[in-house]
């Protein structure tokens, strides 16, 4: 498995930011087996980086490696969608399943 390069943009130490950081850590530990590099960037401290990366919404997770580039916004609480966004599909849903979980 190739190594993941992830950047998480947050705005200040809000509960939303904390949630996103924790969710991401959990997903990475469980699914990537430590094969990742993760950077957390607070746009309040580094507004120039937000400009360069065109960060409008926070939290924003950017998967730089492996390609393709992916952007995921939100506090990453929907694990299934995060994995989809990272191009990781650890399990396949039964196709006939409909409605809520």
């Amino acid at each position, binding site marked *: 498995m190739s190594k993941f390069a992830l950047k998480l943009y947050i705005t200040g130490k809000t509960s939303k930011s904390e949630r996103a950081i924790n969710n991401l850590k959990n997903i990475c530990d469980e699914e990537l087996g430590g094969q990742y590099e993760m950077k957390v960037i607070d746009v309040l401290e580094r507004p120039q980086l937000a400009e360069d990366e065109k960060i409008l919404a926070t939290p924003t997770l950017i998967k730089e490696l492996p390609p393709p*580039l992916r952007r995921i916004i939100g506090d990453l609480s929907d694990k299934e*969608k995060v994995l989809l966004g990272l191009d990781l599909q650890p399990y396949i849903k039964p196709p006939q399943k409909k409605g809520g979980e």
Partner: protein
Amino acid sequence: MVNVDTLTDKIPTGIEGFEHITYGGLTTGKTSLVVGTSGTGKTMFAMEVLSKGVTIFNRPVVFVTLEEPSDDIKNNALKMGWDLDRYVTDKMLKVIDASPDPVPLEKTGDYDLSGLLTQIAHSVKEIKAEVVIMDSIGSLFYQFRDVGLIRREIFRIVATLKDLGVTTILTAERTQEYGPVSKHGVEEFITDNVIILRNVLEEEKCRRTIQILKMRGALHSKGEFPFTMSRTGIHIIPLSAAELKQTSSNIRVSSGNNDLDEMTGGGFFRDAIVLVSGPTGSGKTLMSATFTGAACENKEKVLLLAYEESREQLLRNAMSWGENFQNYENEELMKIICVYPEAMGLEDHLLMIRTEIEKFKPDRLVIDSVSALERIATVKNFREFVIGLTSFVKEENICSLLTSTTPRLSGGDSVTEQHISTITDIIILLRYVEINGVLRRGISVIKMRGSQHDKQIREFSIDTGGLHIAEPFKNIQNIVLGIPSQSAPSESEQLGEMFKK
């Protein structure tokens, strides 16, 4: 004492006419929403406020582009002569590119637009911006598809900018020219100022208008004002705001014809607007030619706008009356512009006339004929044009001769007469008079502001020497009404005639 000017601070936008209809510009530190359907000029409006703000008023601006990538914005601005890159180097402009990203977005829970807000706030502090422009906020709704959240976030951005003391301009789309103010209901919370731009198809012509729907706590002109867009930006034509403040002159200029000068009590006043009304072929063009000739002989400059004839026709016809327009043009005493009324909208005609007047600086203006322009616009639109034109030439102190073709051979009022007769200073009527089966021409000065004038209807004739005015018609009634009838000569006249023989 309540002084409106001190109640609300306003910043000028630099858009021609905008300060006039808003009594000074946009309210400082407030939020203005500019709405319009697609293609109404919202981005143009935003770009002009940006560029004029930087170049004329030395006002740093943060521009957030939410729809077009910043490179496209810069290229488009360059076509208008606005060099955004230079403003950026001069630290007068910061462009935040928040246009939609081709990389797909996956949403995984709670988020907000703090990233954008931080970028804007940071940029405002960085260049000490006084104005923030966001074009257009509708794009945020497409990018994130979460209407409630985006509305909340726009509100938060607006509130933050207000705290920073900057003046904010937001643009937004609407779906109908006359209907809900904006598509996403943003006007409900951006409550300071709402400006509506329209582009309505009327009589097969697009007519652009701007309306200040509201300007909280500040005076502004109400209603729609026509505007036009050119290579130099937006030009608003503030018609109902035109003031009657023109000075008046006692100096007279010649009409080019001694008899007519006599009829008007010594010639036209130098700042007068003269309307020559008559049916086709009655001598209107001749009268404008003699008027032009007299001015040029006097070394005054004349701008002639012809809407009915081509340049060659005009030169030939003038030559047949002994006026050599070509010579006058060579001496730069005269400028002839021939254009079809249908070539452009009335606003563009007005703008063109104004630009030509500013460039050529004529002493006299001839429009032959103003009634030709009636056919390309609605009555309301035409009236606005005429008022806009006449108030402008009055301000510039240009003696103007406008001709108007009456709809019927016998005379009658055209739209032109109905709308401009009150604005004109002199009205000259030309009419056909049928006497014993022969058509003769009659001329009469029916109005002459500030001066005595001949009230009789005189006969006139046209030959190679031009216009000749003869004796008044006798014993003919209702010429002006177009139904001349012979009346019996009075007793004294009859007696006089008897003894002559």
